[in-house]
């Protein structure tokens, strides 16, 4: 291992420790916002898998968060444990995501975006109009927070740890996934589907898989969202959330592992920081995002990536120059 590697690990450990220790002194508002960040990061990681790695544009991630949230809301308010709701949400979102993947086999890019947009609207209408199941526009209130191994998470701090823990588990799983043959197949799919096919990758199966796994992560985020706000109604899961998640992925850096973490941070925390400007905060937020994307269309991590690439190029050219001069001066 190189020194750089150690530095990276040390940095990671410090960040994780900070995420655990620092919020201990936070008030309820700060903990709520941080929990929201963790939940949105999970949903954005799912979309990053579909969009960033496999290259399939989806405007339905918000709907999957909604499906997860409703599964959690309905089941836990009927006395079932959250873990059961989590199972149902994952299976449901995986299956629906798989089915939604079929159009992706036929249409690409913005056409695909339109298909998923239609699904997003459909999901919203189901949440709102199927009163018997979702209580319609009134929404479901008083959603209980779960007990994890006998520990109640009713207070904000334990619930934040639940969200953070879930984020940790999901991160490890995704980290493993993108380093597995599957992850490489996803990237191959994004870069050049024809070549991927010619190399023997079942592009059909992997496209569907990218959708299904990404959607399932949306469902996971949803099952945490419901007990976080303790109230679900259809409005938060409209197209706006899908667009928001898409923005998180792009702003953070689509196709980078840490992209969703940064993207969610920008989307959840930046408007909160800007609130001191009163009526202007959403405008400033929008301007900041636009400027960022003009400066770096590949997101925040794109800047870092560019910088690293430049440094590597510089180092390489320096080496080349040295080698060249040695060659020339060689007897």
């Amino acid at each position, binding site marked *: 291992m190189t020194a750089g590697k150690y530095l990276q690990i040390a940095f990671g450990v410090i960040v994780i420790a900070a995420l655990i220790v620092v919020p201990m002194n936070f*008030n*309820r*508002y700060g903990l*709520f*916002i941080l929990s*929201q960040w963790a939940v949105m990061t999970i949903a954005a990681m799912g979309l990053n898998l579909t969009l960033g790695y496999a290259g399939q544009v989806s405007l339905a991630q918000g709907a999957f968060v909604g499906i997860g949230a409703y599964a959690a809301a309905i089941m836990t308010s009927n006395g079932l444990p959250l873990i059961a709701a989590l199972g149902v949400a994952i299976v449901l979102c995986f299956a629906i995501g798989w089915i939604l993947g079929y159009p992706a086999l036929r249409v690409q890019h913005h056409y695909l975006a339109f298909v998923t947009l239609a699904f997003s609207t459909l999901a919203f209408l189901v949440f*709102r*109009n199927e009163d018997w199941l979702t209580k*319609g*526009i*009134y*929404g479901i*209130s*008083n959603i209980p927070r779960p007990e994890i191994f006998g520990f109640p998470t009713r207070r904000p701090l334990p619930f934040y740890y639940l969200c953070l823990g879930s984020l940790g588990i999901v991160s490890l799983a995704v980290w493993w996934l993108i380093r597995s043959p599957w992850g490489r197949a996803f990237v191959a799919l994004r870069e050049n589907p024809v070549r991927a096919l010619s190399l023997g990758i079942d592009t059909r199966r992997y496209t569907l898989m990218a959708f299904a796994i990404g959607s399932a992560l949306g469902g996971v985020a949803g099952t945490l*969202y419901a007990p*976080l*706000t*303790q*109230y679900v*109604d259809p*409005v*938060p899961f409209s197209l706006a959330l899908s667009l928001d998640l898409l923005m998180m992925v792009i702003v953070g850096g689509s196709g980078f592992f840490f992209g969703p973490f940064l993207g969610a941070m920008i989307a959840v925390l930046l408007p*909160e920081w800007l*609130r001191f400007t*009163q*009526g202007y*905060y*959403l405008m400033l937020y929008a301007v900041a995002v636009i400027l960022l994307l003009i400066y770096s269309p590949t997101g925040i991590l794109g800047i870092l990536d560019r910088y690293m690439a430049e440094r590597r190029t510089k180092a390489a050219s320096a080496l080349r120059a040295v080698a060249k001069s040695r060659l020339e001066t060689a007897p």
Partner: protein
Amino acid sequence: MKPVFLASALLATIMTTAAFGQGAPIKLANVAELSGGGATVGTNWKNGIDLAIEEINAKGGVLGRKLEVTHADSQSNPGVARAQVQKALDAEPYVLLGPGYSGSVKVTAPLAAEAGITQIMGGEAAELTQSGNRFLFRTSFGQQSSMPKVAKYINDDLKAKSVAIVWVNNDFGKGGRDVITKEFAKYNIKVAADISTEAGQADFAADVSKIKAAAPEAVFIYVNEEESARILKELKRQGITVPLMGETTLVGQKVIELAGDAANGARGHVGLTTDAPVELIKAFRDKFVKKYNYVPDHNGLKGWLAIYMIKATTEKMGKVDSKGFADALHGFTITAAKEPGILMDATFDANGDIDRQGFLAEVVEGKQVIKQVLPKLNN
């Protein structure tokens, strides 16, 4: 000499602290829909609050202390509303104001109750005040008190036995539709057509032809302002002449402006209106227009009233006591004679519901005309 000096220093410190305590502003927190789908609601509410506070502070404040308010935007999203209310409560305000959307009230009311802080809000859904929350207060009629009056009027005065209901499919519209449907059942009024519409809907041709096909004896319209104007135009275009009845929005100034001729003949129950034949309300309207350059809807009045509810209740208690506030407001009648800012006498019951006189209005030649004044339920 030294002890005297020390004692006087101590005394001075105590006195300045006391004076500071006396003069420190009373902190209020407002969380409202300042952006998103409810921006009109929240902005009116906020402006009403600011106007009232400005007036009260200019006259020396409440019990000699100035009022101070922070505004936070809920983006019309319950999740954001929850975060903002959490933040507001962490700062321990005297009273929490807002939100206006019933869904956002539902998610935030338990937090305020847990903190023991009174919440004065704009939501109108019937169920809000029926869950036994001691800290929640309305600024306007809930649907459970306005809809019975509408149903009674349709039955007694219009003598309609079949009614088409047009409602906007959000918590406001659906809540009203559910309550009035129950009321209609009491009078054996048939629901000839039950038509749900979308917020922001532009074209009502299909909905109106459904109404035409159902041939009701009256139409009850419960949608937002812009949509009210659009459907009124469409009803006129398709030649529907049966009485059109609404609640607050249908006969509002904005609808009359947008719908033009088509608004003539529309009737409605109005709990709070800037067109009410009450001198104090007219004066309020003039002040509002002078400051903000537009005529407020009932949400502007609600924000204003919330502040005067706080003033009257605090003066009744004779002290700024956050914990005792809710108890003092329960069962309290604020009279306009004693507190002109309340505009009309209002009584708050044990649930936090408001009782106040209401109006039945009709649009005649482009003007809202009050036809009947409905007295308070319990005098």
